[in-house]
């Protein structure tokens, strides 16, 4: 077991390296001379040369990459070109915001999606099931930027109940600032919910149809007992998988939603820094996002394997 985990982690490392190389080369490929940016447009050629030396730009590429990588490992992510602040500080401020958003969406999706999915599965092909399936199709298709706009039109423009953007007022308490979370969370949760409900439903249907359930039913156990005891347990496996996968995707899903609501999380920070060519921030946030993404995916895979030993044997990798 431990060996398996370690092997999987080792397997990650080359991927991480390659991804870091891609991220490093974004700066190299990008137009514009970083020395020019920091030294200013009126710098004399000597000043420019000095600045390039100071930034280490005159060294060969592999050396620059090694220096950059060692900096990253020591959590020295440099300074933002625009805000002139430490990248680690900027990221540190943005992460908690995105975490609140992501976790709240996750909780909402589970709280609503889970019971709906189970109900729909238990009453398969009924009207409730049709409604749930139909709504989940819509939820999947809804572009998050459109849903966000619709919510803003309804709750900010028409009813003036909720603020249309931002993360909140630092002078006010956490409860006051929850109102800034409402619409972004609903926006993200909408599609997650759809996926989740669908998944729970299909997992339950499968589990309910499984042979041993039929056997248990034949033995005369009550419907509820059947559902709770046998089907639910087996339905968990794919559900846990999808939870983990969704969590990883949430990082990406938050990007557009954070843009719509000008919500200062890591998604918005990365998008703005990419659009503004603020390379140190781009590199820092992308490294972080990639690490998180890979770790989450690995955790999901491992949990999946842990929960269902059949899968471990079948892995064809």
């Amino acid at each position: 077991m431990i060996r398996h985990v370690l092997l999987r982690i080792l397997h990650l490392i080359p991927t991480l390296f390659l991804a870091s190389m891609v991220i490093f080369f974004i700066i190299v490929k990008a137009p514009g001379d970083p020395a020019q940016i920091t030294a200013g447009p009126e710098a004399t050629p000597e000043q420019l040369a000095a600045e390039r030396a100071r930034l280490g730009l005159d060294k060969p590429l592999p050396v620059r990459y090694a220096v950059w990588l060692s900096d990253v490992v020591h959590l020295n992510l440099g300074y933002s070109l625009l805000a002139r602040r430490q990248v680690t500080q900027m990221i540190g401020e943005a992460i908690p915001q995105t975490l609140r958003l992501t976790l709240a969406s996750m909780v909402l999706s589970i709280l609503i999606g889970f019971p709906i999915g189970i109900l729909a599965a238990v009453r398969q092909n009924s009207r409730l099931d049709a409604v749930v399936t139909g709504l989940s199709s819509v939820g999947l298709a809804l572009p998050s930027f459109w849903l966000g706009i619709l919510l803003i039109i309804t709750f900010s423009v028409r009813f003036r109940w909720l603020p249309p953007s931002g993360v909140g007022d630092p002078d006010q308490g956490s409860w006051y600032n929850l109102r800034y979370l409402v619409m972004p969370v609903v926006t993200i949760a909408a599609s997650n919910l759809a996926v989740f409900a669908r998944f729970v439903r299909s997992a339950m249907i499968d589990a309910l149809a499984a042979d041993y359930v039929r056997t248990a039913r034949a033995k005369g156990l009550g419907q509820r007992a059947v559902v709770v005891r046998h089907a639910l347990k087996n339905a968990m496996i794919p559900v846990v998988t999808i939870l983990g996968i969704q969590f990883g995707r949430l990082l990406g899903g938050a990007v557009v939603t954070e843009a719509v609501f000008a919500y200062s999380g890591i998604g918005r920070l990365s998008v703005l820094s990419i659009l503004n060519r603020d390379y140190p921030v781009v590199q820092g946030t992308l490294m972080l996002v990639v690490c998180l993404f890979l770790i989450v995916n690995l955790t999901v895979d491992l949990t999946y394997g842990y929960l269902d030993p059949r899968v471990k044997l079948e892995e064809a990798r």
Partner: protein
Amino acid sequence: MRHRVSRREFMKIAALSTAALAVPPARRTVAAPAVGTLNYAEAGDFSAFNPWRFEAVNTNMHNQLFDRLTWKDDRGRVHLQLAEAYEPARDGTSARIKLRQDAKWHDGKPIVAQDFVNMHGYTKDTSLLAKELGIRKTRDLLAPVKDVQAVDQYTLVFTFNGQVPYFTEILDYFWAIRIDDPNDPALMRKVPVGSGPFKFIHWVPNQYARFVRNPDYYVKGKPTIDTFMFRRLDRPETLVANLQSGAVHGIFVSNPADVQQLRADRNITVASTPHPGSVFPVMLNVRKSPLDRKQVRQALSYAMNRVEMAQKAFFGVSQPISTMFFSPTSLGYREDLAKAYPFDLDRAGRLMEEAGVRNAEFNTIVTPRWPQMKLFTLIWQADLAKIGIKLNVAEVEQAQFLASGNDASLRGLDMIPWVVGRTTRDPAIFFGTQITHRGGRTAKHGWVNDELEKLVAEGAAEINTAKRRSIYQRANEIIVEEVPMIHVANDPRIWAWSTKVKGMTTDLVGDLTMVDATLQS
């Protein structure tokens, strides 16, 4: 035998821990904002905290954090601030200033004459000049100043290169700053130290900057507001929503489309500066063919339907202009020049033919911070298409937009809409500090015109008003004729305030001044 956590238990644990993490972290809770907290919002974000940078996105924090020796209010009257007395020499070649002795920097150090000598020194420091645009701008501002001496601890003498009757206009842009870290001339890494009515506490990028009342301010009893929250909203269209919902007390209106709606709201007062000196020109890359030909530039100007743009892109809040000296109060004003380039697509087409340019294609950019730019550029694009000229427009973020506009060759673009100020100040100030409208070595985008440079130098030294008028009118004529940039409309600075806020003013520069403001609870 290892204990396998049953799936049920696993799910329970997972669910509980997820739920626990989702609860927002408790913050130091303040039940309601302190009564003296004023929330003010603008679009975009700060690009620097050094007031010398003088970029449109930063200007409304200048007078909150920083003071000047003297300043002019929006009626043009001179007020003393850090200066206790201002004595220009009889022959106009120097000025003696006595500093008030109770003024302190925000960190407690007293403000002395040596501080101003140091400031003058910044404009001579090559490393600072290279790093920070604001230092270069102030160097140009202080060009007529030969020397600054600290005669004693609280007395300054400015000596000029000749006669400078408009020195108080120069001082209007000379905020007192201190650059403690030569690697941070933009004053963004550490807390910027000023001497103004408010102290800087901290800045959360893209969210807000918090200023608090300076308890040691030398004007007793001022300011009355305890905390000034300068909020930055990424989406300009939410400014109005935030104001109308009461989330903020005042906004700087960035989309003229909103003005009509604001004027109709009874809980809101709409105010603008009486001397709007900012204008929207489209800066042309005159070194890039075919824009190096005057006829092409003139054609582009004739193809601009300014009257319609004023109505549709500026929603009626701006007036169409053909020159930077559009205001009759300016020394360089001439009526015929103010009416130059009426909309004439045929003439534009003919000029292009004369220049021998066919199928011209140009590239420009716009940015969300100024929605007016996108609108008038698209109107222009449609009209240009009618005479076979293709204008490609791309929308970029603020930082990229500013970087392109500040680059000498516009980073390869053919043109870029821009905002230029000080057109209603003394033309010596205007030409002295706006490198966008110069024709010499320091010209921003490489336009060369020796006659203009000669006139600018003459005008700065001339004291006879009639002679100055003819000098600047000729300068006006040159710029209109050569059209190195195409003027579109002026840019009134408009604010909208909740009726609970009183006493806010603007100075002649057009910057917000909150020292006298009061907030009703």
